[in-house]
């Protein structure tokens, strides 16, 4: 299968790569770039474990081809912390115990950041509806909602802007 050249910036590093047209963005991130912090949970765009940001918008990376990311900025869970300092949303998930097995966590954090970009101070119900495309089977969701609201209170929206500005 003929490969296609792409130029994509991932976590602030620009990669020039040849990819197969059939390669999913999530597979490119994981297999070619070794960014295995982005996980695969379902194959059908339901669980959200593979959520990343494309030009600051959340996308499920199992539902995009790598070639569609050509010329775009991708931020993964591995690009959030700066110089060892956790992103406020990562910090909130840590402090609020918003995780158990951790498999949904990277996607959940990426979607939570995107949610606060759209709605910096969501109500509990708005958090629940904004994250309903990200499944967790362990925690019962309670602490995830608490973490997102804590991050909103801690000014995560500002943190998000600097992250996207830097990307």
């Amino acid at each position, binding site marked *: 299968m003929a490969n296609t050249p792409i130029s994509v910036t991932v976590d602030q590093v620009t990669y020039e790569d040849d990819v*197969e047209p*059939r*390669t999913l963005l999530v*597979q490119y991130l*994981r*297999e070619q770039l*070794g*960014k*295995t*912090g*982005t*996980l*695969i*949970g*379902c*194959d*059908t*765009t*339901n*669980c959200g*474990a593979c959520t990343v940001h494309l030009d600051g918008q959340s996308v499920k990376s199992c539902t995009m081809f790598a070639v569609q990311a050509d010329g775009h900025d991708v931020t*993964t*869970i*591995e690009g*959030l*912390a700066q110089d060892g300092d*956790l992103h406020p949303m*990562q*910090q909130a*998930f*840590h*402090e609020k*115990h918003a*995780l*158990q*097995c*951790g*498999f*949904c*966590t*990277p996607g959940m*954090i990426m979607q939570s950041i995107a949610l606060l970009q759209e709605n910096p101070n969501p109500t509990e119900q708005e*958090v*629940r*509806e904004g*994250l*309903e*495309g*990200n*499944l*967790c*089977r*362990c*925690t*019962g*969701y*309670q*602490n*995830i*909602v608490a973490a997102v609201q804590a991050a909103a209170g801690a000014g995560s929206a500002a943190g998000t802007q600097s992250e996207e500005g830097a990307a």
Partner: protein
Amino acid sequence: MTQQLDTTEIGAARGRVDARAKVTGTAPYAYEHHVDQATYGHLVLSSIARGRVTAIDATEAFAQGGVHAVVTHENAHRLADVSDGELAVLQSDRVGFRGQIVAIVVAEDPETAREAARLVQVTYDEEPHESVLDADSPDLYAPDQVNPAFETDTDEGDVEAALAEAAFTVDAVYETPVQHNSPMEPHQTVATWDHHDGRDRLVLLDSTQGVHPVRQTLAPLFALDPQQVTVEAPFVGGGFGSKGMPHANVVAAAIAAKHSGGRPVKLPLTRQQTFTLGGHRTPTVQRVRLGADADGRLDATWHEVVEHTSRVKEFAEQTAVATRLMYDSPNRRTSHRLHALDVPVASWMRAPGEAPGSFALEVAMDELAVATGVDPVELRVRNDPASDPESGHPWSQRHLVECLREGAERFGWQTGVPPRSRREGRWLVGQGVASATYPLNVMPGNEAEVEALDGGRYAVRIGAVDIGTGARTILGQIAADALGCPVGAVELSIGDTSLPFATVAGGSAGTTSWGSAIVAAARALRDEHGASPAVGAVARGVQPENPDTEQYSIHSFGAHFVEAHVDAHTGEVRVPRMVSVFSAGRIINPTTARSQLLGGMVMGLSAALHEETVIDPSGRMPNHDLAQYHVASHADIGHLEAHWLDEVDEHANPMGSKGIGEIGIVGAAAAVANATFDATGVRVRSLPLTADKLGG
């Protein structure tokens, strides 16, 4: 009574020690490990439910390029032991269910493997099959025992005479569907064959609830000593029983790696493939008959269960077992019958037995409350037995009544309100209650090792696995108290067969079983090396037998209170509020424990509202993905509270704890069902509680 630890770290609300790795995406699950020279496997699954593979044509698959092997029953590595029908992967041409492994493609990259798997042409000789559970089938049979080793049937007193004389009776049939554990991480394995000490060695990175159980199961299949199999599972993305014993995919990975030219094989299951290969909860049809006097005191309890099992391998879920001890009923009868079908292999799913069984019993109790006019909370209190009705043993503690009382208070339980009498706009509003119980399970044989390090630190080693429960965090707390040191001085190693033997993370048994071994090792270090051991001093401890488990009936209990709203026009159910109170012995870490309990409650709520895997007459599971097998999402959940009684069960183990992984799910679906009855006056006796059943 077991000698209790002095607790300093135990009981402290500590954050998860692996949280930073998990929020930064740096926790390696099985597949996420980098291995050099990896190849990629993809499975080809059968498209018939029963018959034989007559031909496999891999010409097109190989024509793609990049395909190293197409492993079939004709060329697969021969296993030394094919007695386990589930694990005898590619050892014959037989097909026993739709979705069984009929070939493995090994290729240079995942896309090639998947496309090649699609191109493998399999021809079958199809035979008649049966895939749908029929509780009236003439072929039902009684298994020798039910999981793990309970009597199939029990009969105490004269249940039929008691029913005939009862002032009030309930006689109803309850149904629960096939359910899938659906941990967020699909099953995945990385397998490599190499040589070590002059012998073959199988090296596995696996998504499993027990590294030593995987070793013990796989070694004889490949005619290896257990020491020739190493298994690592540093991080596991949930299991809920589905990774409790190795399934066919793990054997497939090991076989595939025999055909990959010595290179590692990464074999992930797709989510869809987990539905037929990763185990499921059997469907149940349960007839419950209760007989009570005018005050609602039970005189007869009769619980009959029919469930399916795979013809490939028997699994008999212990659905009626908890009914044997739940309430004080002098006359009791329970039975389990199986309908063997050409379906995937059923297995453990969170609280096997108690979860589906409590749905039937606790809804039946609600029906008895309606029949007798006794308040549902009071009815349960009146039938609380002073000792274990089944064994006759005293309870170590039975605080169900306290859970019911405290839960009713916290919830704001209303008495004397008739069904379908409250409404908020278009929503009919109801309240429901159900009890929960789960036994103290102890898995024997655990060992731990403690080594004194410099600076007053200690290495603590045990092959336990943290599948998301918090074991990595709380075992450190237990070790700290056992050693009398701060938790920060403990360096805990888990999740690897190079560490001392550990049993499965399942049955709410991990903390008891592993923790007791760690306490034994710490006590051995102190006995053998004193309070200030020299650096490098090592002691091992074996989990001691606990004679109290033979003398006392040791169980956790709980009570769920649910507010349900049902749309008066569409029958849609929402659960805005759930309050549960548990009696589970000492809580080691309130932070991780609350999360475990809430997670169990939500899985029960999810079972109540959504979860149902269809097995159609063709043997297919047509809704085999998370698009169609619905699990509760954020937006399904409202206000949740998990509380527990402040207590210690000194008969249980040195920590005084009883395990919390399962109790949250037990009874939860029944509480929702009872609340929907209270809201609507419509009694639904089958899960899930979908709108069509509740009507408008």
